[in-house]
């Protein structure tokens, strides 16, 4: 199966780029460092779309790559199915645009090669988590991504950033410990680490205390990684004090890859989502939605406000996936994609304001629309999108989630989603009013719009925001439907993987 050969490239390319840049970065001009990283992330983007094409052509629902030529479940395998491919496309779109944005934005920090090294290590971790078919391998990649993100949060090395990074590192390590213990218990129970084989063994064994126990451990661990509400305390600090391009990566894709994707993959495809787990997920999702959006309303620090909204929007995603119906999962995954796009855009906007006006405080800025037209325009689109104004992409995904709630009879959750959406709108109207409308302050007379590379990244993301709703059209819907099918098939994941292995 030659098509499967592209799967390890998602790990090889960023890993090579990371260490290559750290090796040669000291000797070459920073322009060349930009070119190397831009090329590498562009290659990853191409490959993720190519994966979509290969997966569409081949008759199986999954492609399996055997590392070292060893047959799974004895060797480690990498799996590319609809869900992995969906996540790969999401992650690599954001990564590519964030790299473009960083060309100019990261100039104000001293050590650009080190930034790219850590950035690509984080990307290695995320791509690895997505493509791996082995539970312990997932843990290793998760740690690679987490540890590089701890370092990236502290990249500015100011007191506030170090404190946030320390808090994040502690909470992240606690989460990793829970996940690790969960994996150890599952390994003890099933005697295998391959996810597909584990699903097969678990469905054959009679259920006992181990599975609910492990479910709780994973809920805590991945709940911490994805910052659901009782576990969210680290996120507002970490995401608001990182450099803006890193905040965009963290809020846009990291919490979704390490948190939501891993949670969904393990609960739906390996352990098998029971009614109890699903109702806990729905409850946590609805709680995150409401609590975080109320906390966000009173924030004056722009990035902190956005960080609270990340928690709230992750609540939507988890609520949708937790419904367990195909429509709910479709809504959840679609919202995951949309949220990656508009939340990255919002963080890049906040970085652009910081770049030009050197402030993050909403009370400080006023009337920036006159001086920063591109930032203001893209921010308006992203704000409307996150608040769910039609016809932008956020509207469709929220609508699907609310419809799915009603369809399953959870009127309360549907109502909660509507209320959270209205409060989101209120909070972003505040952003618009204080940041972009009103009279221009005297001290901002001299500021200029950001450089073209940053504009390009923001405008591209805004375009995806506008066109995102088209993904629901029949000709594009395979992108989402393939991902939904993987989750709603549940433990048939094992059949898909072994079918692809034996072929």
């Amino acid at each position, binding site marked *: 199966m030659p098509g499967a050969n592209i799967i*390890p490239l998602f790990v*090889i390319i960023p*890993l090579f780029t*990371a*260490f*290559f840049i*750290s090796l040669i970065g000291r000797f070459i001009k920073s322009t060349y460092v930009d070119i190397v990283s831009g090329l590498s992330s562009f290659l990853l983007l191409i490959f993720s779309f190519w994966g979509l094409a290969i997966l569409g052509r081949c008759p199986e629902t999954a492609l399996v*790559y055997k590392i070292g*030529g060893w047959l799974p479940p004895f060797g480690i395998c990498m799996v590319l199915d609809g869900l992995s491919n969906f996540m790969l496309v999401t992650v690599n779109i954001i990564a590519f645009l964030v790299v473009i944005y960083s060309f100019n934005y990261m100039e104000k920090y001293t050590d650009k090669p080190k930034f790219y090294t850590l950035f690509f290590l984080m990307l290695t971790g995320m791509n690895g988590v997505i493509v791996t078919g082995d539970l312990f391998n997932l843990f290793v990649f998760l740690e690679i991504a987490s540890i590089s993100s701890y370092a990236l949060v502290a990249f500015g090395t100011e007191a506030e950033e170090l404190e946030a990074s320390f808090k994040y590192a502690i909470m992240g390590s606690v989460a990793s410990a829970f996940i690790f213990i969960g994996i150890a218990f599952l390994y003890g129970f099933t005697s295998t680490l391959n996810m597909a084989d584990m699903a097969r063994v678990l469905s054959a064994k009679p259920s006992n205390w181990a599975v609910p126990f492990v479910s709780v451990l994973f809920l805590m661990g991945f709940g911490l990684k994805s910052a659901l509400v009782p576990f969210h305390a680290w996120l507002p600090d970490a995401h608001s004090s990182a450099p803006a391009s890193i905040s965009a990566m963290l809020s846009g894709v990291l919490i979704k890859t390490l948190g939501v994707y891993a949670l969904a993959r393990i609960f739906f495809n390996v352990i098998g989502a029971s009614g109890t787990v699903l109702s806990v997920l729905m409850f946590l999702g609805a709680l995150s939605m409401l609590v975080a959006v109320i906390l966000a309303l009173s924030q004056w620090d722009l990035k902190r406000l956005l960080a609270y909204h990340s928690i709230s929007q992750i609540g939507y995603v988890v609520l949708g996936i937790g419904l367990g119906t195909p429509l709910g999962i479709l809504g959840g995954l679609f919202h995951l994609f949309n949220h990656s796009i508009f939340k990255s855009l919002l963080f890049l906007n906040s970085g652009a304001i910081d770049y030009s006006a050197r402030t993050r405080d909403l009370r400080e800025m006023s009337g920036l629309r006159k001086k920063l037209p591109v930032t203001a325009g893209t921010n308006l689109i992203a704000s409307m999108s996150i608040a769910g104004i039609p016809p932008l992409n956020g509207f469709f995904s929220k609508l699907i989630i609310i419809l799915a709630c009603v369809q399953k009879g959870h009127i309360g959750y549907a109502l909660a989603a509507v209320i959270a959406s209205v409060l989101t709108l209120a909070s972003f109207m505040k952003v618009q009013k204080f940041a972009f409308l009103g009279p221009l302050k005297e001290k901002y007379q001299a500021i200029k719009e950001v450089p073209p590379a940053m504009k390009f990244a923001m405008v591209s993301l805004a375009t995806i925001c506008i066109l995102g709703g088209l993904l629901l059209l029949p000709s594009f819907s395979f992108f989402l439907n393939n991902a939904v099918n993987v989750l709603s098939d549940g433990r048939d994941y094992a059949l898909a993987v072994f079918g692809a292995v034996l072929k």
Partner: protein
Amino acid sequence: MMNDPKIGMSLIVKTVTRLTVGLILLFGIYIVLHGHLSPGGGFAGGVIIALSFVHLMLAFGKDVALKKLSKNLASNLESIAALMFLSIALFGFFGGAFFSNIINKGVPFQLFSAGTIPLSNLAISLKVGVGLFAIFLALVILEESKRK
């Protein structure tokens, strides 16, 4: 510089270090080279190799250790080691499968056997050894800058 009584620890420690540090380094190399035959391997051997440099730093002070292995060299070697490991895996990628062992495996239990595994062990030991040394160095430099 090595015999300056003002820098580093007492004469007893320095003498013992001078006698043992070579043996520690040698033991680390032994563990790495026999990684595919006996317990241990790249990681464990790399840690022991790093410990020999840390030992030097503790006994004689930062400057003596840095003369043997400077900061820039350490960070370059670390990247090179990671790239070495990746390229060993890539040899397999172009010869069949990622990480596959394509070199002649030789006779079992011989020192030169097991294909790419001893090479991977070498790369890992370099990465781990230099990396641990760099972490220790970073902590020392941080402590010094705090004191100033």
